[in-house]
């Protein structure tokens, strides 16, 4: 496929310039093939839309933005080599992060070695922030552990006689997916909601019969899936096949995918999911983003595109505030310091970060209500009321 080693600009052949000039070269490596190719392509669309938008408005600091995108084939070895190449040989002025925790960590290490600012769209797992990176910033509202914070608060606010008493957790053996489920588990356990099933399964699991049998047998009031797409769909259908009817069901990732209702059919009603982004959100820059993206691609953006665009917004805010965008250590240090001390308005709301680059926020909680996916938490942004208990599936 043509994406094998895609460089979107001709600047590889125009060799290793040392920044400056009338363009800002942004080096990016993305998983355009391999395991993460679907979200990887989404992130690419987001980055491209952002660059297009910025260039249509005169660029950054009056300089055109040029993206240099390499394909790391979802490999952690390649992603590190890619960033080395982008910084050393291709003369990147700035770098943006790749997709997925597994690729973000090796990539951030390279950026750190060269003193580069590293804003990334997809490192939601706790371990990203435990590596001691002072140059890293996650451009999304919350890390995986905090995705369900609003839901935890809402459950604990339910009067004790109607509140779920037991919970079943099933999580993919993946830092992000597990992180989402365990963030909620920890909070609910602290409040006395008993864990009756706690299953971890490998990413290549194809049969969910046994896991579903355990959960159905436990009759847990609440089922939480720390899931990606296919495992969530397979698990939900298998739970239905075994006649299990929880009072509350929450799954990460899958329910926000447009394919989800097609896969599950009419039985999505009441299913909850955290989401970092919705095209309907009222933030000022979000309207421009949705309009620009929709005009460019003919469909509204999803979370991957939004996180990429947010990355662009965060870096652009720092560049404009500091007034430089070149690879020298002083400029990169000023960009990093500025982001540590300031907050940025983005399409996912106002973002600010702690010293490890972890955003200070929580995800919105969505639920299928009346056949449509609606924001139900937190109260100040909700589009519909939380439905509890969940209708039968």
């Amino acid at each position: 496929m043509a994406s094998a080693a895609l460089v979107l600009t001709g600047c590889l052949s125009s060799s290793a310039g040392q920044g400056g000039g009338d363009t800002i070269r942004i080096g990016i490596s993305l998983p355009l093939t391999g395991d993460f190719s679907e979200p990887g392509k989404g992130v690419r669309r987001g980055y491209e839309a952002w660059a297009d938008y910025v260039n249509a408005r005169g660029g950054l600091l009056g300089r055109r933005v040029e993206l240099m995108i390499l394909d790391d084939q979802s490999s952690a070895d390649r992603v590190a080599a890619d960033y080395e190449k982008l910084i050393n040989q291709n003369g990147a002025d700035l770098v943006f992060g790749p997709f997925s925790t597994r690729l973000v960590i090796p990539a951030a290490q390279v950026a750190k070695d060269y003193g580069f600012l590293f804003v990334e769209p997809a490192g939601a797992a706790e371990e990203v922030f435990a590596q001691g990176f002072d140059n890293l910033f996650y451009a999304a509202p919350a890390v995986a552990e905090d995705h369900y914070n609003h839901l935890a608060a809402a459950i604990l606010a339910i009067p004790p006689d109607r509140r779920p008493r037991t919970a079943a957790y099933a999580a993919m053996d993946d830092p992000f997916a597990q992180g989402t489920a365990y963030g909620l588990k920890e909070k609910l356990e602290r409040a006395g909601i008993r864990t009756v099933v706690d299953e971890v399964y490998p990413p290549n699991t194809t049969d969910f019969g046994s896991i579903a049998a355990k959960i159905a047998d436990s009759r847990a009031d609440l089922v939480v899936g720390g899931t990606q797409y296919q495992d969530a769909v397979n698990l939900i259908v298998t739970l239905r096949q075994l006649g299990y009817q929880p009072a509350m069901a929450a799954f990460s990732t899958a329910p926000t995918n447009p394919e989800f209702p097609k896969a599950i059919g009419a039985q999505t009603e009441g299913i909850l999911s955290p989401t970092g982004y919705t095209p309907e959100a009222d933030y000022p820059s979000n309207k421009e983003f949705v309009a620009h993206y929709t005009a460019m691609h003919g469909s509204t953006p999803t979370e991957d595109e939004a996180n990429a665009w947010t990355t662009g917004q965060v870096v652009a805010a720092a560049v404009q505030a500091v007034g430089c965008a070149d690879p020298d250590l002083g400029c990169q240090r000023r960009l990093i310091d500025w982001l540590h001390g300031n907050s940025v308005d983005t399409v996912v709301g106002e973002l600010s970060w702690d010293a490890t680059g972890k955003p200070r926020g929580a995800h919105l909680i969505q639920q299928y209500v009346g056949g449509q996916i609606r924001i139900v938490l937190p109260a100040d942004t909700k589009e519909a009321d939380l439905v509890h208990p969940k209708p039968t599936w």
Partner: protein
Amino acid sequence: MSGSLLLQSLLLGVLLGGLYALLAAGLTLYFGVMRVVMLAHSAFLILAAYLAWFFTVETGLDPLLSLVFTVPLFFGIGVGMQRLLISRLRPATLTMMSVLLTFSIALVIEGMLGFAFTGTHRRISLSYSGADIALFGASIPVVKLIAFGLAVVSLAGLYVLLKATRFGQALRATIQHGEAAQLVGINTDRIAGYGFGLGLATAAIGGTALALDSTIYPSLHWHWIGPLMAIIVVGGLGSIPGAAIAAMVLGLGQSLLQIPLGTTWAQTLFYVALFATLMLHPQGFFGGRLAQRF
């Protein structure tokens, strides 16, 4: 562990074992007939699953009806593949070269699926996908039961075909001793082609059974090839009853072990069984004399 959970896991294990047997049947046939290690078998399963999904999306009809088209199509592809590609490999290096050849075919199928249907995960939306039949407090999922039924019918059909027909005799003769079969007038080349076609026809049925209850995507076949290879090695390469028994034992074992051990360890059962087989009984545990040739 409660009694109802045990019964439920037993039922699910039997259903899973049936599906595994169906999915592995073709693999053991290819190896039995012509010592071909067919790495593309699971890619063909996913291809059949996609065709079933596409058929349902386009026509709105039940995916099982797609078998009317996919079974003859896959049989034809199998015969063609054997005659045009596999038969050109040199006998001395057949087994090894077939790994490379079928590996590349698997990659081509995966690439074509990605190109035609994108990498988006698909699932057939069935009105009965969540339906179940209650049995002593346990549930039998209807779609899993249908997949099991497909497995029973196909494997029984295959067994009858091999045991009771002239073609079956010729095929078994080809498996047992190719040269002797030629001496008694069997056109072993043609029989080998049909044998390969038959194997691929089971992939059409298996893939459709898989599509009833799985979310599918182009690279899914890599998740299947390992367990399926383990099944046919444990069962005895070349033996269809052996593969069926091994599939049932491993499916049940996986389902039951999952309760105390969890999913990750239960899945390693396949590789432990593979390792133990190769150490203790390299010709497989259930294959009998036929399989011992290899």
